[in-house]
């Protein structure tokens, strides 16, 4: 009965109640969206690289090297020589290496030059190796392997010919037209930047650039002079710091070797303060909407003095009046929470493909994490606390509900 009373009373004040519900759901939407984005980006970044002990590039900051080599964010500052790469490739404590050569694109997707070791040794997530949904590894100089997203978005099949462009813009004027590549393999989806990348051989990259620059064509030595960076795995993890020191102190060339995990945590450390500010803002927005709830209820109590008096006359104790106001607040908070979850889930589903294509962000539409449930629970408690002021006012009004 008290629930009927509270819900019908809310329905009776549709206008103000609806606005309050919207305010609460918008604020919760902001809070959940910020938090979800933060968690998913972190998770996405952390799962992109796994099992790689060191990433090596020319001398630069560790975060910069990590971002351009692994996440394809930003541009490389300088290359490292093929000679240096070969030198460390044969290092006794290094088990495997994956060369990375960046700079070209295809219809807005990055192209990475590498070799078959990439498909053998690159791991993502929880040490998952790459796998092919169709075709196989490189077979020839002009073979290309596609990330799943590229194949899906551009509707490519095995054996389709494609042309690469210099630089990163999809409308680039300098297309490497005379050298069509042939699609030989398509990778399974990984939920990492791998999905948005095309993989070609180092020789293929070298070939198109030589001929693009010189107008010459065939039968040249296609061993590259430079690469952008390389990843490596060690024979024993114990050797990590020895090898890192060896690389950093390499006399011929200034190089930087980073531990991807350490560089990531440095990145999170920098992002940390931004995160905190965003969190603070979203909590303040929630606070504002809860104060709005409180204000709406306070205003309603002034309109409902007669109602409270009537309930008292027919035998309602003041605690009953307190409970009605609290129940109304809880109903509003619950409906607001439901609406925000619904809105955010539909927004995530609707914009998933855009976000993936534009930012390489794979966002799960599942919002039911332990952390989110905790936040939502806390918001309900906060709503109960916010409603305590109007509920206490109603209680007092009930105690002294005497018309003189």
């Amino acid at each position, binding site marked *: *009965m008290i629930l*009927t*009373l509270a819900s*019908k*009373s809310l*329905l*009776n004040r549709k206008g103000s109640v609806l606005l309050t519900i919207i305010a609460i759901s918008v604020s919760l939407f902001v809070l959940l969206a910020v938090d979800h984005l933060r968690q998913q980006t972190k998770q996405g970044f952390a799962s992109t690289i796994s099992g790689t002990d060191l990433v090596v590039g020319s001398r630069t900051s560790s975060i910069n090297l990590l971002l351009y080599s692994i996440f394809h964010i930003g541009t490389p500052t300088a290359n490292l020589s093929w000679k240096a790469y070969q030198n460390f490739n044969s290092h006794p404590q290094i088990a495997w290496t994956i060369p990375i050569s960046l700079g070209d694109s295809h219809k807005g997707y990055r192209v990475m030059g590498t070799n078959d070791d990439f498909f053998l040794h690159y791991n993502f997530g929880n040490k998952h190796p790459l796998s092919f949904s169709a075709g196989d590894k490189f077979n020839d100089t002009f073979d290309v392997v596609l990330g799943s997203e590229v194949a899906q978005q551009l509707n490519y099949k095995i054996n389709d010919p494609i042309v690469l462009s210099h630089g990163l813009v999809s409308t680039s004027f300098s297309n490497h037209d005379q050298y069509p590549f042939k699609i030989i393999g398509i990778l399974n989806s990984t939920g990492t930047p791998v999905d948005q990348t095309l993989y070609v051989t180092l020789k293929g990259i070298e070939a198109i650039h030589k001929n693009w620059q010189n107008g010459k064509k065939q039968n040249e030595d296609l061993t590259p002079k430079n690469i952008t960076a390389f990843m490596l795995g060690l024979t024993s993890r114990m050797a990590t710091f020895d090898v890192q020191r060896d690389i950093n102190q390499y006399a011929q060339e200034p190089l930087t070797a980073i531990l991807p995990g350490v560089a990531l945590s440095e990145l999170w450390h920098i992002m940390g303060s931004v995160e905190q500010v965003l969190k603070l803002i979203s909590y303040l927005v929630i606070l504002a909407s809860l104060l709005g709830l409180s204000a709406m209820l306070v205003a309603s109590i002034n309109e409902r003095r*007669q*109602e409270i*008096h*009537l*309930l*008292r*006359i*027919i*035998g*309602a*104790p*003041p605690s009953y009046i307190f409970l009605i106001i609290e129940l109304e607040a809880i109903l509003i908070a619950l409906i607001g929470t439901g609406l925000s979850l619904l809105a955010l889930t539909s927004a995530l589903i609707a914009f998933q493909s855009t976000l993936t294509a534009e930012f390489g962000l794979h966002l799960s539409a599942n919002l039911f994490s332990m952390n989110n449930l905790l936040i939502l629970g806390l918001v309900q408690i906060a709503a109960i606390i916010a409603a305590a002021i109007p509920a206490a006012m109603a209680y007092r009004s009930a105690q002294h*509900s*005497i*018309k*003189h």
Partner: protein
Amino acid sequence: MSISINNLTFSYSKSPDDLVLNIKHWQLHEQENLFIHGPSGCGKTTFLNLISGLLTTSNDSIKVLQRSMNEMKGSEIDSFRAKNIGYIFQTFNLIPYLSPIENIKIACQFSKNNVSQSSIKQMLSDLHLEAKTWHKATHFLSMGQKQRVAIARALINQPKLIIADEPTSSLDEKNRDIFMSLLMEQTEKLNCALLLVSHDTSLSQYFSRVESFNDINTAGSL
């Protein structure tokens, strides 16, 4: 004895000069119908609030249905009122956004009285309320209909005492007569006492006992 009052004094302020009520001795018998008339602002509502326990005094001056009002705790008074006193006001007798049936059910909830839906409907039809009004929010009802639902609300728990505070003052002559005859009919059926307070002396015709409030309350008269 329904109500018995001995040496009641009451004032809202601390000063003894501002007495609102000063009643030496006054009684309402069981099943008695009493009409008290008096101008507005003479303390009638305060008097009724003291009887219903919404206001309390520090001494043992008011007994309602043999129970001393200042002996009971707040929650006891609330449930005592829910079970034993039916109240009818001039206006705002009903929660406007609830239907007549829901309004009556709320009254039953506080008295912890299990009244069946059918007996509520029976009562409403006894009060000449058509079935199409039973599930409508009461703010769609006419004043006459509302006051008749108020009778049902006040009587549903079969209280021993009905208090009516200017119940007809918002009604036109025709509705007033319908209301009064239904109220008298229902209280007689229930064998409960009725205490009706109004400034409208034409209501005297329905009552066996009629008093002027100024005769009961000596506060303010020198």
